[in-house]
């Protein structure tokens, strides 16, 4: 198991190098110039000489291959460079937002798991009952309603009904837990609802499939209590595909909550990503793509490890 994990971790290196090459050259195809946007985006009458000097300072006048060399050397030394827009280290720009995005992702995942597993299990066990219909209605609603729209409804409801809104600036959990949770519970709920719908449907369909397996029939025939059949034999196996979905959704939440972050005015990775793309801030985009790629790989590895924990038949070498 440990050997397998180390092997997978080492395989991440060539994958990340591949990602680095693709993102670097793809970005250079995109039209636009960070210097133009920064100095002329608001109507500034900036001379060509000034633009040229700024491009020189940022190293944008160097041949592409030299820029690529700088980027790869930086990566090798874990230096993602400086944002071309703010001149601050990319690591710093990402770090400030990552805490918030990670916390929203964790909270949404907790909400989703707490709602989805009981809901999906109940729906499968009571198939075609009114409970199943309610669960199906709720989950279809979750899939159909975009998170950002639900977020807007939540905000407007809080404003209209209670004349109250959550804080507009982020306070870390360790500084003021109440302020922190008061701000982040709402986006976590908005995102968690859709997330729970996806997972609940997956749990329901997997569990229905597993409940028809021979070993479940055998367990029941042997007189094993129904709750043990369900919890120990059926659910444990049915959760495997749900774990994959939970992992993928979690990784997506790190950088994918662009509109939801804007609705709640959250200072997260998604908003930063969109801003850096619209500004042609190459170094920052590259840094974020690398970070998100790394997250996906780590989450995939974790999911694979969890597979082994849930299913003793699976062993990695």
């Amino acid at each position, binding site marked *: 198991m440990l050997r397998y994990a180390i092997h997978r971790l080492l395989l991440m290196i060539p994958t990340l190098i591949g990602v680095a090459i693709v993102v670097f050259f793809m970005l250079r195809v995109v039209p*636009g110039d960070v210097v133009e*946007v920064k*100095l*002329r*985006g*608001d109507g500034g009458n900036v001379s060509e000489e000034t633009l040229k000097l700024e491009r020189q300072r940022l190293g944008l006048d160097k041949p592409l291959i030299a820029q690529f060399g700088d980027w790869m050397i930086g990566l090798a030394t874990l230096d993602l460079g400086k944002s071309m*827009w703010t001149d601050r280290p990319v690591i710093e720009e990402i770090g400030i937002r990552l805490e918030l995005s990670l916390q929203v992702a964790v909270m949404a995942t907790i909400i989703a798991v707490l709602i989805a597993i009981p809901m999906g299990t109940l729906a499968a066990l009571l198939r075609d009952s009114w409970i199943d219909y309610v669960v199906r209605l709720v989950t279809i609603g979750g899939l159909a309603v975009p998170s950002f729209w639900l977020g807007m409804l939540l905000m407007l409801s809080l404003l209209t009904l209670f004349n109250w809104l959550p804080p507009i600036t982020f306070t870390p959990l360790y500084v003021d837990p109440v302020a922190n949770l008061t701000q982040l519970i709402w986006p976590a709920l908005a995102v968690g609802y859709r997330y729970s719908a996806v997972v609940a449907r997956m749990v329901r369909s997997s569990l229905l499939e597993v409940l028809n397996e021979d070993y479940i029939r055998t367990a029941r025939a042997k007189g094993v209590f129904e709750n043990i059949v369900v919890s120990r034999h059926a659910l444990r196996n049915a959760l495997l595909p749900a774990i994959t979905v939970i992992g993928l959704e979690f990784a997506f939440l790190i950088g994918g909550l662009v509109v939801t972050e804007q609705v709640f*005015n959250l200072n997260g990775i998604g908003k930063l990503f969109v801003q850096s793309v619209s500004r042609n801030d190459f170094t920052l985009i590259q840094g974020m793509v690398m970070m998100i790629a790394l997250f996906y790989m780590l989450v995939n590895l974790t999911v694979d490890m969890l597979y082994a924990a849930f299913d003793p038949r699976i062993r990695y070498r």
Partner: protein
Amino acid sequence: MKRTALALISAAAMLAFAAPAAEAQTPKRGGTFTFAISAETPNYDCHGSDTYATLHFSAPFYSTLLKFNLDKYPEVTGDLAESWTVAPGLLTYTFKLHRNVAFHDGSPLTSADVKATYDRLRDPPAGVVSTRKATFADIDRIETPDPYTVVFKMKAVNAAMLEHFASPWNCIYSAKRLAEDANFPKTNVMGTGPFIFTEHVKGSHVAGKRNDKYFRQGLPYLDGFKGVFMLQAAAMLNAFQGGQVLAEFRSVSPAERDRLVQAMGDKVRIEESSWTLNLLVVFNVEKKPFDDVRVRRALNLAIDRWGGSQGLSRTSTLRSVGGVIRPGSPYATPEAELVKLPGFGKDINAARAEARRLLREAGVPNLSFTLHNRNLAQPYTPGGIYLVDQWRQIGVTAEHKQFETSPYLAAMSSGNFEVAIDFSNLFMDEPSLGLAKYVSFDKAPQNLSHAIDRELDSLFDKQVRELDMKKRIDLIKAFEKRLFDQAYQVPLLWWHRIVPTNKVVMGWKMSPSHNLGQDLAEVWLNQ
């Protein structure tokens, strides 16, 4: 419902007019003022920036030599300068500085700091960006005969020099800090302004606390302020309605204004003004058939600006019909004369008949082209849609393509467009600023039509050096006539600024530019 909304809007407008009376109250000290900023500055350096995002962030921390007196705009008044004299001939400007001014690190402000600041503005060292280098090119040298006197010696007369000294972008920096690192202001905030920088949480907010040693006695009133970056209008409106932010100083759209008024009633104050911003239609003269003046004239004549003003002002921030100078400002062409200029007449049917004739004469009666535009909802999208419709009425087909800011600007700078919507963003009503965009491309790269017109250049140079206001106005009118005859680029409409503030916010003054009056020194909270 509609009547209620209208009644509320009327009430808010009346309250807005009543604001000066309310502000006659004795200001209260204390409180933290939270306001929204709809963009975040890339860095803190005023000298290298042209975006309001920098000023709304930095202005409370800095002072300038002069500033605009917003009670008597466009009159200028002293900021760090206690008094000043201008020698006859306008070639020497002498400023006497206040003696009790200290930077936030405790060091006293002297004339050396002013000199170092203006040297950086007019001749930035390597690695420093000054977007105002050309503005101060007329300065020959700066002398500091004593620690509290600064003398600017000019190479040539510049009628707008005093206004340029009042530019909010000329934040005064410490000479000592600049000597240590010429780019110090880019990543550090250290001025002599009414507030001391406390934090900038990237992507979230900027905060400042009262400068107890501010050189203006009794100011500022506030304990501190917090500028929260709110990029999404819906989030800002919710926060405003919920009382979490008390102002948005750039502008909101008419629909957003109406929502706030309807939801908040007399708790919101709405102040409106024409804005020193306009949308322009630019014809790329290097692309056929736009090298033909008849085609450009025809497309300009087809635009019903007066009708557009009425319709677009209901849904967008576009409103006033004007020439190259903001309507209503001292140098603007009055309406009676404006209507005589091509494209500004009120008989749109006659203008369109003439437009069709010109297109036939140019051999392109069924012209089609692409209109290059920016994908910002306000006011680019409604402006673009309106133009497409106007040209359709003379048989012209324009395909409206909107782009993200970066590719939009890239195509504009490289000349890779046929017809585009551009904009002119000024911080004051000074003709030299307003006209600069229209002089020949080889002198002004911001002229995106790429036109070369020496007659316009000559008129521009004459008006810069002209000290007699009436003669200067005549030169500007001649400039405008030539520009609209040739129609390289023509204004569509001027923007309209709508600023909502919570009624508890007092002491802030409205102006035609969102770049002015943002130091918050006199702002106080009536709560």
